[in-house]
């Protein structure tokens, strides 16, 4: 078996990344994608967007439909076979690409090797900014009280919790407040949010309570899926608290 290539050392390559924006951002939350591009532009990183991209295959994978997930993941692998570092503004989609897609193919197959190779050069956005670029200040300014919700896959599969906090605290004028149990699940869980809608919402209510307890006006997370769930609950409750994706926050530059 060929040994897997080492992850790309970013210091050695020209700063050109390939954006995997995720289907949900592309179709429902375009402002998150635009924000990501704005941040990377400002940091002097060239952003390539391959129009062949669609979904990472996670919805099918998480519901046990491995074949369908594989079909979709295969398209991803084709599109990114020769790209540079892949940046993803989502903890759970980055997890899918880094952790689960490689398990969908036999380890010794061409696809298996490719999946592992791409996984090695795939970065969740905040990790890319902090760990790869060494950036904790994007130049954003946002004089508001903000709290942060750890999305589960990002925190527990990828171990990324420090990076988004550093970036948030690097925003000028911001008042960052930790909510109690920030690392506790919001209850979204993909198809769980529909299959066990009542349980999902009940868990979400606990999250909403802790958000309110923090006194923040904005809740920031790095997954639009969690934010769609939390935001939907907040709105149904008539709450004044607004959701904000990390990329949106980090791109609030003073013009």
């Amino acid at each position, binding site marked *: 078996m060929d040994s897997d290539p080492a992850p790309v050392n970013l210091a050695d390559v020209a700063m050109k990344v390939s954006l995997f*924006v995720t*289907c949900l951002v*592309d*179709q*429902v939350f*375009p402002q998150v*994608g*635009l924000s990501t*591009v704005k941040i990377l532009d400002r940091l002097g990183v060239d952003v390539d*967007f391959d*129009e062949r*991209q*669609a979904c990472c295959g996670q*919805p*099918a*994978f*998480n*519901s*046990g*439909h*491995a*074949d*369908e*997930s594989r*079909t*979709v993941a*295969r*398209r991803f692998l084709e599109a990114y076979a020769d790209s540079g570092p892949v940046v993803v503004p989502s903890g759970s989609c980055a997890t899918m690409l880094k952790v*689960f897609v490689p398990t969908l193919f036999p380890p010794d197959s061409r696809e298996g090797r490719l999946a592992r190779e791409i996984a090695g050069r795939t970065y969740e956005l905040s990790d890319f900014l902090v760990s790869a670029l060494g950036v904790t200040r994007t130049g954003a300014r946002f004089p508001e009280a903000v709290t942060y919700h750890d999305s*589960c*896959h990002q925190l*527990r*599969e990828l171990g990324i919790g420090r990076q988004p906090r550093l970036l948030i605290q690097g925003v000028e004028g911001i008042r960052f407040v930790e909510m109690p149990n920030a*690392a*506790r*699940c919001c*209850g979204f*869980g*993909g*198809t769980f*949010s*529909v*299959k*066990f*809608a*009542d*349980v*999902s*919402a*009940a*868990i*979400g209510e*606990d999250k909403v309570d802790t958000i309110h307890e923090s006194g923040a006006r904005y809740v920031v997370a790095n997954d639009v899926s969690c934010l*769609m*769930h939390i*935001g*939907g*609950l907040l*709105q*149904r409750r008539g709450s004044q608290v607004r959701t904000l994706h990390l990329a949106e926050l980090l791109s609030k530059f003073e013009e």
Partner: protein
Amino acid sequence: MQLRIRSNTSAVLSDANLQANLKPALEKSLQARDRAVAEVSNWEELRQHAHDVKAHTLSRLDHYLEQLERKVIAQGGKVVWADTGAEALEFIVGLLQEREIKKVAKSKTMLGEEIHLNEELERAHFNPVETDLGEYIIQLSRETPFHIVTPALHKSKEEVVDLFGRELGMPPTDDVEAITATARAVLRRHFLTAGAGITGVNFGVAETGTLAVVENEGNVRLCASLPEVHIAIMGIEKVVPRARDLAVFLKLLSRSATGQKSTSYVNFINGPRREGEWDGPRDFYLVLVDNGRSRILADPELRQTLACIRCGACLNVCPVYQRIGGHAYGSTYQGPIGAILTPQLTSAEAAPEHPFASSLCGACYETCPVKIEIPHILLKLRERVQRGKQRLARHLPLEAWAMQFWAWAMSSPKRYSFLGNFMRRVHPFFVRNGRMRVPMPPFSGWDRYRDLPPLPEESFREQLRELRKEGK
């Protein structure tokens, strides 16, 4: 029979009393565990070590079971093998009949729950008495354990007072000490008249033939000492190779389960009473129960499920368990470990909803003292359920059809963009007063509790294309 969860959730979620008891109780367990774990600087190394020891033991289980058996027999114990729960029950019932024993003092054993030991003994006209206070409460109220470590977690003090008043004639009180004293006195009488004691086993040490049983109350000590016969029932996966491995496992178990550095009692039992010893059972039986475990063992991906030491920490930390509690699972084992163990001990078809009763948040894995990758196992089991459904159904199930359509749409940029555009074009029909409502399947579950965000005019890629054209 199929176990269902979805049909149970709305009842437990709207049970105000249950919800009020559950959260503070679990919060207390969580905090105790977190405090106890934070004190141990090498916790991660301990976890990894325990994981590795279990992985090894399971990969050589044949060898270690034989070693354990030899040692127990050499110490004067008898070893009985039961392929199924029914076989274990048949042996126990037969033994009690032969010895003319009516009353049995039991300590808490999840394996006993799994094989429905109490029901079977009662059906055969024996009198099993649960002696762990929580289990005794559960037995008196004719329920099943709510939690694998704290079976009566959901019961408030007031409910216990009512129950003991009804069943034991205890006068009303709100003094927990007094309630406990009543239970002590009643159970002490049962202990003194029981002909056999049945306990579970936490660890069976192959090297020494030691059965280690942890507890806080002292009822295991009594079950294993007072009656003439001691029957220990043990799942075949509970073996550890060496006595010294217990130094690691006991630390992980007590801190994870109850936040204690050590439980009040750790019993090491090496067979029946020996020559010259003042007391202890004359006869000791170890019943080794398979009941589906060897089948789990045969699957290298899922085998690690058998590493579980039943600490219950994954239940306490699970957002789903925190909301629906134990009974909604309808199975012996609840929470994350129950979600992976139940379908494997039975079949994917028998517990089709268990692997899905999780948001896959991973808190269970993070907490698990032996590092069982519960979320990854859940995913494997979900796959198994879906395959089973498609195999059994005459028509393609709706969800499978939807996923095939989704995969078809997602694997072509054209179809993908067309579908996105289509959604954005129709969505204004669902917007009322600035809120998007889609009260139809598959969105109705979402819609009942949450608003949907309004869709944008253009997708990201369209907007990016325009920006790039403008040269930005």
